[in-house]
């Protein structure tokens, strides 16, 4: 997928000016966070569970080589196969080769951010294979040729009217008289179109919420049941997942699952939690003939030894974006690539480069809300700051900004000069703004006064006034 992260500001302005998006974001803002809050309230040990979740992921990352090999062994033992993909190219190529080996024409897909990350749909189409997204949100954005705007609700930028319009435009068999006014009717329409695809598909591709080393299993959670149909009906099941999805045991996965749904949607658990271990065994009533896991690195192993390692704990719950005031203002597409919100602001630069994604870790007020809700306690603001440090060290910030910063820092280390200048400026602005209270415009402060007034300083600095009072006090 072509990234537009470098024009984040343009994207953000478009998002701010899009009334449908703004309406959808208002709904999100009042929905997810409140539901999470209630779910957390109902689970007194939630905070302790966050610590345990963090330690499970930290332990796994500490011994990732061991668990990866254990996972591969156990996948093989259950009759499946692990394919190691260093890059997005390799991951796409492996998937294509598996699809070709069974002469696949139609591929159904459960929701997979890794498939989005490697741009799988376009690639399959270019190679004559039809991918069909089966998660309702993913299906909608596939019809609209849009990237996901959210981790777990990829079409959250749309209202149901746009979905109805999309179905009318794309579903040729749809009776124009049929009502699509209600969400229920939209679901029915999508279901009617998708059912035959589930049955016709040769290969089913899903993501994984967790990969379990001790059993060689993949686990997915969904609320629509589409994941189950995707992975059990076709002859071949391909799991696409990145390295950091690994956990040591089923018990660990169960612990993280308790955190995941509550953090994501405020559910105690998702409607469907499905564990897949290998292909169909003799005597099984259903299941695929082949079970493949494509394990993607794509730059992640390089994060293991460095300051961004904490990011690899992420379980993709979306709590950070659900609670982010910047995401709530501009929506997910502004971030310009697959991942958005605070987790995207940290992860995207490590996957597509800080030169391309430089805005993302800067477009944060560091309000800290994301870190306060992260189920595995990823210090997201701190990691965004680390990206800013890399930018600064690499001289990637605008020269004017760098110059301003260094003049200010130079002054801040010279208190006598600093105080004199502050007093002078405070007096000057106080005099210029006398009787007005605030400036409506101010040279060199356009960023401020374009959208809000600038209060006029009182006209004297605290330190000058304090010095005068001290002197007067001594004299008395």
């Amino acid at each position, binding site marked *: 997928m072509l990234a537009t992260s470098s024009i984040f500001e343009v994207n953000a302005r478009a998002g701010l000016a899009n009334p449908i998006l703004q309406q959808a974001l208002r709904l999100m803002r009042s929905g997810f966070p409140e539901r999470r809050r209630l779910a957390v309230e109902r689970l007194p040990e939630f905070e302790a569970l966050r610590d345990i979740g963090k330690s499970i992921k930290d332990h796994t990352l500490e011994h990732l080589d061991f668990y990866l090999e254990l996972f591969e062994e156990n996948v093989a033992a259950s009759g499946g196969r692990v394919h190691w993909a260093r890059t997005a190219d390799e991951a796409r190529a492996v998937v294509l080769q598996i699809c070709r080996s069974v002469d696949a024409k139609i591929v159904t897909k459960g929701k997979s951010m890794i498939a989005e990350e490697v741009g799988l749909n376009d690639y399959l189409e270019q190679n004559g294979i039809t991918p069909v997204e089966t998660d309702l949100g993913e299906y909608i954005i596939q019809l609209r040729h849009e990237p996901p705007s959210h981790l777990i609700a990829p079409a959250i930028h749309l209202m149901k009217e746009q979905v109805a319009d999309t179905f009318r435009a794309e579903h040729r068999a749809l009776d124009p008289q049929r009502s699509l006014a209600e969400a229920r009717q939209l679901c029915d329409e999508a279901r009617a179109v998708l059912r035959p695809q589930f049955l016709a598909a040769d290969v089913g591709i899903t993501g994984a919420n967790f990969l379990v080393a001790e059993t060689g299993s993949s686990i997915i959670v969904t609320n629509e049941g589409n994941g189950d149909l995707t992975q059990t009906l076709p002859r071949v099941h391909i799991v696409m997942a990145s390295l950091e999805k690994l956990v040591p045991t089923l018990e660990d996965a169960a612990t993280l699952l308790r955190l995941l749904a509550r953090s994501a949607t405020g559910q105690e658990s998702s409607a469907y939690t499905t564990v897949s271990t290998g292909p169909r065994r003799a005597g099984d009533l259903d299941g695929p003939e082949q079970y493949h896991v494509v394990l993607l690195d794509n730059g992640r192993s390089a994060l293991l030894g460095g300051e961004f390692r904490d990011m690899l704990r992420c379980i993709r719950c979306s709590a950070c974006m659900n609670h982010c005031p910047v995401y709530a203002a501009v929506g997910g597409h502004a971030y310009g690539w697959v991942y958005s919100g605070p987790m995207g602001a940290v992860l995207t630069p490590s996957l597509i480069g800080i030169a391309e994604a430089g805005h993302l870790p800067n*477009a944060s*007020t560091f309000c800290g809300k994301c870190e306060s809700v992260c189920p595995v306690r990823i210090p997201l603001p701190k990691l965004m*700051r680390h990206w*800013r*440090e890399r930018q600064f060290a690499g001289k990637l910030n605008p020269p004017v900004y760098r110059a301003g910063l260094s003049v200010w820092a130079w002054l801040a280390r010279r208190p006598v000069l600093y105080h004199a200048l502050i007093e002078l400026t405070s007096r000057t602005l106080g005099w210029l703004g006398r009787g007005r209270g605030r400036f409506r415009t101010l040279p060199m402060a356009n960023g401020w006064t374009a959208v809000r007034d600038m209060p006029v300083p009182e006209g004297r600095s605290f330190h000058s006034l304090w010095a005068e009072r001290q002197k007067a006090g001594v004299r008395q």
Partner: protein
Amino acid sequence: MRVALFVTCLVDFFRPTIGFAAVKLLEQAGCTVEVPRAQTCCGQPAYNSGDRADAKAIALQVLDTFAGYDHVVAPSGSCAGMMRVHYPELFADDPAVLPRVRNLAARSSELVSFLVDTCGMSAVSARWARTVTYHDACSGLRELAVKDQPRRLLASVDGLTLEELPGAETCCGFGGTFCVKYPDISDKMVGDKAVEIAATGAAAVLAGDLGCLLNIAGKLQRHGRRIEVRHVAEVLAGMTEDTPAIGVPR
């Protein structure tokens, strides 16, 4: 208790009244207050811009300036959070300085939480007949757990009624340089905040950080709303008569 006031660069420049209110409150709480002259800024603008070298240099200066005091108190959760939470991170890989940094961090506090939690203050002698609402500034709230303390003291202000602000814990969109780097996004955030403040019907909005207050006052005034914006310390110190609200002419 010998307390050094960390004035903060915004209070020093924009609104000295807050500094004097802080001194008054600290003295009421029984502290001996000094204001070291060699202070400028806590270094947060450099730190959050990725300029670690300048942030460290400024932090070292703060370390020297505030050595020897029992406590360092700032009328800002943001600056206090910088000293208390971020200085130790900044010097995590510098074992020679880290003990001094940790010592300063342990002595550093935000004003209102210091008054309540450390000095045991439970009431103030101030009067302000207003219905007010309160915005929880992010750093104080999430880095220093400043939440109940200002409400407890405000409850003792004669004539004052607190009308809670829905979304009080949501960022106002200031974020230091964020507000000028991304003015459109900041505008949306502070615009929403202004609407929520107005919807409470309160005559005034208070907070514990001048950055947020300048942002909120600027937006309310741009919208032509006559809602008083003040630092909570001004109200607690009974100094609302001394200076007009933020952005209001004398």
